[in-house]
């Protein structure tokens, strides 16, 4: 089976029903994507498939059609994506474990809705749990990122 992650094609030999999350983490060693709940309740495993946020714990790799982007493919410490820049500027993270998923969710959401209202932000981000409670900064960072993305 072939899959493309962050622009690189990989050949893998796994069961069709293995969730993409575990293919990424345990077969390909891509650990920015996190396991939190395994049942679509926390968003820690959020990645993009063709630019759209999906929960990698829920997507059987056999059902995958499209290119996968993980947080590592969104931006790097040297070249941050605008959403990551906003996350750094607002110093959002506490433990940080949820933040890959938060950032991937926010990036996809802003792609679809460049100028979201507060209610739209709340609705789009409520599937991503943050046990540390960084929500006020997530809201602020999304607004900063939206403004930045509109400039370019």
């Amino acid at each position, binding site marked *: 089976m072939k899959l493309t992650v962050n622009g690189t094609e990989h050949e893998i030999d796994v069961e069709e029903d293995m969730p993409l999350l575990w293919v990424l983490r345990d077969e390909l060693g891509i650990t920015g994507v996190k396991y939190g709940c395994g049942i679509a309740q926390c968003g820690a495993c959020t990645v993009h498939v063709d630019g759209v946020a999906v929960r990698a714990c829920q997507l059987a790799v056999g059902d995958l059609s499209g290119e996968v982007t993980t947080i590592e493919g969104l931006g790097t410490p040297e070249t941050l994506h605008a959403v990551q820049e906003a996350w750094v500027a607002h110093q959002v993270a506490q433990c940080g474990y949820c933040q890959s998923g938060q950032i991937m969710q926010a990036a996809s959401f802003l792609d679809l809705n460049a100028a979201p209202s507060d209610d739209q932000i709340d609705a789009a981000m409520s599937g991503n749990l943050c*046990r*540390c409670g960084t929500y006020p900064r997530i809201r602020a960072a999304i607004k900063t990122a939206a403004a930045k993305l509109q400039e370019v």
Partner: protein
Amino acid sequence: MGRGKTIARRSFLIGSAAILGGVAFGTYLVKRDPENPLLADAVAGDAVFNPWVRINASGITLVTPHTDLGQGATAMQAMLIAEELDVELEQITTTPGVPSAAYYNTALAAEAVPFRSNDDGFSATAMRGTMGAVMKVLGAQVTGGSTAVPDSFDKLRLAGAVARETLKAAAAAETGIDAAQLTTARGAVVLPDGARMDYTTLAARAAQIEPVTNVSLRDPSQWRLIGKPVQRLDIIAKSTGTQIYGIDIWMEGMVHASVRSNPRKGAPMTGFDAARTEGMRGVQKIVGLPYGVAVIADNTWRAFRALEEIDIDWDIAPYPAEQADHWVEVAASFTKERLDREWRHDGDVDAALEGADVITAEYRAPYVAHQPLEPLSAVVKVGATRVDIWAAHQLPRFVQQRVAKRLDMDTEQIHLHNQFAGGSFGHRLEFDNIDVAVDVAHEVPDTPVKLTFRREEDFAQDYNRQIGMARGRGAHADGKVTVLDLDIATVSASRSQSRRLGAPMPGPDTQIPAGAWNMRYAIPDLRVRAYAVPELAPTSSWRSVGASTAGFFAEGFLDELIHAAGADPMEERLRLVNDDDARRVLEAVAEMSNWGSALGPNQGRGVALVTSFGVPTAEVVEVTATDAGIKVDRVWVAAEVGRVVDPVTFENVVAGGVIWGLGHAMNSEITYSDGMAEQDNYHMAEGMRLHQCPVIEVRGLENSDTVRGVGEPPVPPAAPALANAIFAATGTRLREMPFFNTVDFV
């Protein structure tokens, strides 16, 4: 005593004895202090100034032994050392170091003694000193009790200052210039002519001279880093998916494992049938354990999947199987026999209630789970003479000792590589992941095993927050609260926990009444008694521990009395408050929230003041009762911490504490049925999600001489302030958490 005086006294101590809290400061040319763990692998040219600072030709390494649970402990500890060492944060690397008695926690003991934290009387101070000594003997390297800042504040600045002055002495020896004429900046000693000698090049020389221990700490007006907004050291990694947590550890030859232990916690596994795992891809081994069954596979998901195919027989729970019976036991605990201690009795409550119009109420707080977002995990490799463990833990020394005992090895043979944690909230004070990973790894010697708990297993095996009740009686006269009598009965999370640590706790449990008995109010007749409910389901420290329940009981019931008296909740608290720090945090939230200003229809404000871990914290919550349910609009919070070390993280952690307190009070409980927790994943116990999050305004007050941590204190006032706000908006008095069993939230 003013802050200046405090520092002067401390620098004298350092100068004369070169000792602070029993830790010797100085360079270590030879193994003069077996307690300095940095000596173990020091080589020629390494200047190992003390257990926290190592400088050599290739760089500056600061040891930050308090575990980073997300509270920013690593950055905070580095900042304190760097402040006095005169290095910039981008010039250093940090390491959690190895577990060592040198990193024992001098501050934790302060909360373990039965004196109020604002009680500076002789016996209280002496007793805290004794506990500090005990901690040292135990080598208790502990991250918990909001003590990372207080434990570190003086110690780590001194560690930096000693290293700096020794480097200056080295430069003086090298150049012949008097040390008094030398200054330091950006990782270098600066000569009078402006020439710079980098610390890294001076290190070899510094390693050969006598330590300079006659140092004093800088005046706060000179601080470059402390109290200033700086970028957290881990913020880029945590925004790019490049931060490695325990669960991300990978190494050559590693296998993956997962476990199902008896969900009736503490009871054994009695038999299993793994026939259906036969031939499942990637499954390498099924391991029967006294308490459960583990699967070793070549991939985590394959281990998870195989676990589901195993039929397992479990013994019955060693506690009541049904939740209702847990409550029966709690309710039956208000007896003379179970009285743990009468913690406070001002005036004469019985006489005051005699013939008064007595108001009574009963409060309840449920079990609640910790469930940080990173599930429990550990990587363990067991060799014949050496065991390596990669995991995040708040008690690294205990991990070593426990594993040594489990495998009948020496403590020195157990190597814990402490990791960044994806949250804890008290969860990583327990050992289940370590125990299981060690047992499983023991089955496949010399092979690194990564054990990952399924989220469902993590819920099933959590040691929850204590369950409890309170019964209040009170009275008022002339529009004032005059009598408050509070009986609190909870299980003792501290005893449950210390039993598992193998160090049974003597004396009464300070945590049962924490946040209530130490209320900073002068109510003429005031009594707080604590009753210990015998162990039910095992419990453990949950962010803010006892104050998360007793604080709710006390501030909820006080609010009832204030309303019954016809007084204003803020004004009456300000009238009753008997301590300046507490008064100031109340005044702060009154001002921030514009208390008393007009509210819209169906809106209400509530206030609460709870002191925990020595930090008086006041919160005002504002809610609106909409047709769809209660909306939590805004929260204002003020805490007296003596000194805000890292303001950016401070604001984040305080707001997070408010969210933690509110979210669990609103939406979360663990209930038992058939001996098992009924909630097994976040859809059944989610705390707060973003859409419910109010706007939160945070203020840190810095009037006190004592520097304190703030990981826990914002939690306890949140629940009562919310309940009090909902009462103000709707007339519904919430006396039982979680509130969603009584009212709807939008």
